[in-house]
Every structure is written in structure tokens, then in C-alpha cells.
């Protein structure tokens, strides 16, 4: 059955670190891995599942992708265009609420991780 989004197979790269981006993604179905590549080594940051989004920084910055996103099993992902998103925010700022809320949770998570790293170091 033809459902929404684009399907990726196991191990397929959806977003590659260092590449330019102009959209974010919402996971319709399945799981993806968020990976940071440092000195050729993969560092697993977290897994994301259905309804989670990724690539949102590209909506606000002209910078390149900060992480690689790889499909873990079969996944289906919906693309959110920058133009569509920013146009929506212009009309209805509350559209960004969930995005800001999630980014806030991620900053909190990163702060916790940094604190633990500083403690252990």
C-alpha cells in the first residue's frame, strides 16, 4: 500500500554529515540512528523513532548537516521543506512550538551529557 513519505532500507543514509541541507524530516514509521563522524569513526548519539523529527537545524541555518542519519531497518520519512515551514511560521508562529519544545529537550539532554563528561574527565 502506498503510504506517505519516502521509504529507506536498512543501512541507507538519509542525511549525510557535512552536506548542505534545506529541509527537515519527520519519521512516519521505523527507526533511524543519529551518528556523528569524527576522524572516520562513527559515534552513535541516539536513535529516533516514529513521530520524531531530525534535520531541523537546516531550517534556521545555512550551515551543513551536523550528523549522519542512517535507517535502522526499513523506515519511512516525510520531508518538510524550508520554504513551507518558514511560510507557516510567518503565518502562525505557534507552528514552531513543538519544534522549539523538542530542541529544548535536546539541549537539556546535551547539557546533562556534557556535565557527566566534565565530571568523568
Amino acid at each position, binding site marked *: 500500500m502506498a*503510504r*506517505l513519505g519516502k521509504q529507506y532500507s536498512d543501512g541507507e543514509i538519509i542525511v549525510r554529515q557535512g552536506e548542505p541541507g534545506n529541509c527537515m524530516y519527520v519519521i512516519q*514509521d521505523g527507526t533511524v540512528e543519529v551518528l556523528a563522524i569524527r576522524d572516520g569513526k562513527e559515534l552513535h548519539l541516539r536513535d529516533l523513532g516514529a*513521530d520524531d523529527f531530525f534535520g531541523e537545524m537546516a531550517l534556521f541555518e545555512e550551515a551543513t548537516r551536523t550528523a549522519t542519519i542512517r535507517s535502522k531497518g526499513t523506515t519511512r520519512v516525510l520531508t*518538510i521543506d524550508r520554504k513551507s515551514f518558514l511560510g*507557516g511560521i510567518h503565518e*502562525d508562529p*505557534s507552528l514552531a512550538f*513543538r519544534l522549539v519544545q523538542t530542541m529544548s529537550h535536546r539541549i537539556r539532554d546535551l547539557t546533562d551529557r556534557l556535565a557527566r563528561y566534565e565530571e568523568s574527565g
Partner: protein
Amino acid sequence: MGSAHGSFQQLAAEPESAKTLRDGSRIAVVGAGPSGSMFSYFLLNMAEATSLQLNVDLFEPRRFCHRGPAGCNHCGGVISESLVQRLATEGIVLPDEVVQRGIESYTLHMDIGDVEICTPLEERRIAAVYRGNGPRDSEPMESESFDGYLQRLAVDKGANLVQRLVTDVSREGDRMRLECADGFHDEYELVVLASGINSRLTADLEERAGGFRKPAPTKAFICEFKLGREVIRETLGPSMHVFLLDIPRLEFAALIPKGEYTTLALLGDDIDEELMQRFFTSPEVKNCFPGGKIPDHVCHCYPRMNISGARPPYADRMVMIGDCGTTRLFKDGIGAAYRAAKAAARAAVFHGVAAEDFEAHYWPMCRSVQVDNRFGKLLFAVAGLIQKARFARRGVLRMTITEQRHPGKPKRMSGVLWDLFSGSARYREVFMRTLHPAYIKDLVWNLVAGNVDRSHPPAVERRHGTH
């Protein structure tokens, strides 16, 4: 509306009192179609974010789990690309059970040929859904209706579903009073009318309250064909089939593939038997069906469509959203319902429920839709001229095919047609794109090239379907 309440202006002239929602405020939402359910959902969402305790009663006598007219809201059931993206951004990811089929292209059919217009991302971002649980006499489906899904979201968020038919809304001192067919009545701080274009409530309001004009409707035609998944895959594919035919009063016609069924939607100026006869005997339509034979439809309706919004769509402690307020002309009515629901919820939670609050914070959205609809009328008038002029159709077809054959080429005509058919962009934006010098240059060139050498008509360009 209650006859004792005089003019609409008097209705709106409630003395200045506590016209804001507070902890414990009661809100009645009349109608749990997309606008009513989304209003309830977003209102409760915003209230939660601002630590406001609200009680929302969502009145809907129908059950969307029913098949046929009893559970259906009578529309083509297409969720536009822009709405799919916005809902996903809001955290409302349409589940597979709701999406009957993801649409990834539009196929334009004309007497001189047809062309498939593909989404640049090769991704399915348009959803074909059922508003109820499928056509009359269909097999029970495992899928869920779109309206039922939104209603469930609202209920999960805290709305109280009341399965009663509201028959009257009137003002009772500083509050609004609701009466139901079974004698039930109650009072609320805010009443939200989301009862659709067929509601008697707006007709009563127009009769009893001077200064209010209910939306103006036109008649459309929608029917369902049972083709089976395999036949749909072979003939229509994940493509919505749109017809640009020289049939007077027909503005738009589309075949929308769903699970086992295909929905046909005819929109225009009062669709009647004569128009339908001409449509069904067109070779371009017959060729979309197996063996060129159009099967009997299993379910049909003549729904009324809002072509001119209510004025004003608000009063003190009352606001009209969706089809009984303001909606888009012909396209993306559910997207317009989403925008109206959010704008009304924002006004109620963050500003107040007085007429002036809705005028300042809800009416601008309605006005922008109404202004945009004027551009829509202009675009559909131009499309009507193209329908009538064969030389223009040749130019449009040639330009679209050329763009679809060359991936790197700017998709000027394809983009205009895509957004016009899908309703994903505002009509004004689409119109402005047709004034771009590069668009005009390409169109003029294709009009000339497409009509100079008619001995070699452009090839038919389709990825999906056997014809």
C-alpha cells in the same frame, strides 16, 4: 438563533465583561468535522501550554466509523502537501490506517494528450483519505476515517464528545445557550460553530439576526467506483488524475485512487446530469478505466460547497470556522479548516472571546483566504479559457511535457499546474508565478512550437497506468 436577540450587531453588543477564557470556562464546539476537532485539539493544546483549565464539549451526532453517508462528510478526501507537512510539524503524523493512498503525482488529461506531473522529491506527500469509513455497502475496513482520527485526537486531548444534534444557539445573559434535538440544553462561555455548509444553524442565524450573511454554496458531485487494488495499481497508480476538458461549467474534475476504490470529484457551477453525461462520455475519462468502460458507482452524493464565506464569521462569544465560516475556493478545504481552527483557538486562548477579539485576531485570516479566493477565481477562469482553446492546450501540454522530460529544467508550468491541482500553494502565489517573464516567454514559445507542427503531437508522458 433565539428570536429575542434582535440584530446581529446587538448580538455582538454584549456589555464589556469578562470576555476571556479562564480556568473552568466551558466551550461548546458544534460539529466534529476537521475544523471542529482541530479547534478542540489546538485550543486544549494551547490551554495546556498556558496552564489554563478549559472544558470543551464537542457536539457531533454522527459516528465516523459508519460506512456511506451516515459517517461521511462528503468530500473528495485529499489532504494537500502543505497540510500534510504542517500537521507533521505539529506532531500530527497521519497514521497508515488513515491514509488510503499516498499520492506522488498528478496526471493531466486533455483531448490532445496527457502528461504526468511528478513531485520533485519523488515522495508521497499528498494523502487520499476517507472522511467516513468508506463507501456505502463496502466491506468493513481496517482503516480509520480521517474525521474519526481527528475526533479521537481531540478526545484524547481532553474534549468531551457529546453525541447530540444541536438545534439552536442563543444568548442567555452573559453566556451562550445551546439546545439539542433531544431537549438537552446547556450554557457556555464560547460557542464555536463548525457545523459545515449544510447546517441549519447558520441559515437560522441569517434569518433572525440582521447583518449576518451565511456562506454561499454551489453543488458538486462525488462518487466512488470499486475497482480493486490491483486494477487501481495498473490503471491509475499512485497518481491523481485531473481532467482539463471543454465542458461548460466544469471547473475541476479528478479521479482520486484510494484503497479498493477510486473517488471521482466534479467541481464547478452547479453540477447537473447534463454536465455529468458529457463528462462520462469523454474518451479521456473512459480511457482511465479498464477496457475503456466506466463501471457503475457504488456510492454518490451531491455535496454543497462553500464558494463565499460567512460575514462576519464571529460575534461575542461565538465564532464560525470551516465550511460554515470561510474556506478556500474549490481546493484544500481541509487545509483552510486547519488554518481557521488554529486562528480561532489562538484568538480565544491568548486574546479573548469578544467580537473585537475575533475581529482583530481571527478575521484577518478569513479575509486573507477570501482575497486569495479572488485570485483563485481568476486562475480557474484562465483554466476555463484554456479548456476552450485547443491551441492553448497544445502549448500547455508541450511546455509541461518538456519540463517533465528534463529533470534539470525549471518546472514553471508543472509547478503552476501542481499547485493549482493540489491546492498546496495560495492562489495569489500561483498567479504571481504566471506573471514571471520566464514563464511567459516559455509559454509563448510552446504555444508557437506546439501549434506550428501539428503532424507530430507530443508523446503521451505517463509513468503510471496502462493507457
